[in-house]
């Protein structure tokens, strides 16, 4: 076998490792092993590439890889679990930027060797990875900024936004077409620069709570940009790995927007939502609807004598850093013979599956985490539901009220349980700005205050019962 064949075999093994790694991610038992296998695949791929005959200089590679790798490792070790969405956005942007730079460099190599026009396959793949990679780079950095709260999380809009973006997109495509037939570096650089602006202006109008969809979407973009560089470089591994990621990002984008009851298009172009509104609900007759409160000590007594308790955590729980007290409460109740589980809505948190990670970090065993369907089947047999920092995902209007903005969104049907306790700071509405009739349900009691303080108090009271 020649060296070229050996490299291809190594790429095949690497592809196999990636697929096996993703396969093992289907269960928490094997997931860690799966990630390790994928990492080994990556190592094999990189070593195979380093011995490629076309690679002649190693100095720059070593320096760049060392610097990049160290920064990546350092950030990944330090980052807090609540900041996971930012990190994923940032890493995603880096991948997109790398794909764009590879395409730009390939294009330059062809321009330097005196070629006049690109072949069709090369043209499409170079232009695709330049443009999509640039959009993904800039868009991910803005998403990072929003999640890190460097850039305001609310939608930022300006007049004729869609028209300007549309115009920008047309200009980019025109430049790309021109640059394909007349190889000229500055034209491609201009296209990349406008694509960067497009990435910024596409993500700025998207509200903070829509970030799960945006991150998944940008993830798909980077994957596809990587696959396109595979076509440009004639490299099967890049195509396979890039497309795997593209498929994953696309599936998650669809899943997330379905769980939010919005189309992907309305998330990406909608500028939806703002700061939560406030105010109290007003009944049909015009008077304010009643809200019943409960004290922590009363609740503690109820909890201890319950058979089954379900906890519905929302992002508010993570904001209040209340994962640990909530786990303590669950442990205490379990020790008293109460059956406790957590019901997790697909969009709880700032990225797909974020809440599960936050609870896992607080040592909640994963067999206590229920997905929406399981939880909904359980609520009718549940004595007490604790809704902590969640609002829209438990709003019965999504099921009952056809005039509601939330109508059709799959929810956790907590109102099927016997008692519902809502932990809340105030009566402000949720992200969607929709009033929640659950709070006025006769079986609901409100526990007002900071979630962390309320839970800490509750833990003490349960210990005292």
């Amino acid at each position, binding site marked *: 076998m020649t060296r070229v064949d050996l490299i291809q075999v190594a790429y095949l093994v690497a592809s196999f490792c990636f697929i096996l*790694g*993703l*396969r093992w*991610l*289907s269960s*928490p038992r094997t997931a*860690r092993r799966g*990630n390790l296998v*994928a990492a080994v695949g*990556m190592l094999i*791929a990189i070593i195979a590439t380093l011995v490629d005959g076309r*690679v*002649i*200089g*190693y100095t*720059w*590679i070593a320096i760049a*890889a*060392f*610097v*990049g*790798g160290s*920064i*990546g*490792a350092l950030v*990944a070790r330090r980052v807090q679990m609540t900041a*996971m969405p930012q990190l*994923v956005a940032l*890493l*995603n942007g*880096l*991948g997109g930027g*790398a794909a764009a730079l590879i395409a730009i*460099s390939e294009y*330059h*190599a062809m321009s330097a060797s005196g070629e006049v026009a690109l072949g069709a396959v090369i043209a499409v793949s170079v232009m695709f990875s330049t443009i999509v990679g640039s959009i993904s780079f800039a868009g991910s950095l803005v998403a990072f900024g929003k999640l890190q709260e460097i850039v305001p999380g609310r939608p930022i809009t300006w007049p004729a936004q869609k028209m300007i973006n549309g115009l920008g997109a047309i200009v980019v495509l025109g430049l790309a077409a021109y640059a394909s037939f007349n190889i000229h570096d500055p034209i491609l650089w201009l296209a990349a620069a406008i694509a960067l602006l497009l990435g910024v202006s596409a993500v700025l109008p998207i509200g903070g709570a829509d970030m799960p969809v945006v991150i*998944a979407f940008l*993830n798909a973009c980077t994957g596809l*940009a*990587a696959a396109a*560089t595979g076509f440009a470089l*004639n490299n*099967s591994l890049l*195509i*396979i790995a*890039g497309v*795997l990621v593209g498929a*994953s990002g696309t*599936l998650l984008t669809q899943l997330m927007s379905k769980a939010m009851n919005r189309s992907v298009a309305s998330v990406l172009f909608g500028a939806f939502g703002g700061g939560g509104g406030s105010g109290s609900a007003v009944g049909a007759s015009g008077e304010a609807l009643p809200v019943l409160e409960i004290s922590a000590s009363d609740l503690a007594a109820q909890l201890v004598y319950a058979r089954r308790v379900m906890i519905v955590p929302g992002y508010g729980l993570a904001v209040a850093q209340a994962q640990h007290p909530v786990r303590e409460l669950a442990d205490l109740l379990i020790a008293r013979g109460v059956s406790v589980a957590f019901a997790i809505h*697909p969009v709880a*948190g700032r*990225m*797909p*599956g974020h809440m*599960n990670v936050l609870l*896992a*970090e607080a*040592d909640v065993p*994963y067999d206590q*985490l229920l997905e929406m369907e399981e939880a909904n089947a359980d609520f009718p047999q549940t004595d007490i539901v604790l809704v902590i920092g969640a609002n829209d995902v438990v709003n019965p209007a999504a099921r009952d009220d056809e005039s509601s903005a939330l109508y059709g969104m799959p929810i956790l049907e907590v109102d099927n349980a016997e008692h519902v306790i809502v932990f809340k700071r105030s009566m402000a509405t949720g992200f969607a700005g929709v009033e929640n009739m659950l709070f006025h349900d006769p079986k609901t009691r409100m526990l007002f205050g900071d979630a962390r303080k309320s839970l800490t108090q509750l833990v003490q009271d349960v210990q005292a019962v």
Partner: protein
Amino acid sequence: MSFITELVILVLAAWVGVEVISKVPQMLHTPLMSGTNAIHGVVVVGAILVLGAAAGGTVETICGVVAVAFGAANVVGGFVVTDRMLQMFRRRPEPPKQDQG
């Protein structure tokens, strides 16, 4: 490699991707995202090819160095953080054995 071969690879990989990823439970979607994030760091392979073959050209060297650094950060950061997350997913500990006697 011919374009058609590459296209076949693309379609098959997309199929496998959809099949495998649709089996990942919601609970693991964040690790799935950061894991696939690390996998698209495979662009580092392309970056190495570009930079390694750059015989001193300024544009190739600058693009290549930045691309390799970005790709390396993407790969290492992605796998490390995914591992950190996955090691936190634990089952309920076995109930402690009761002392006989």
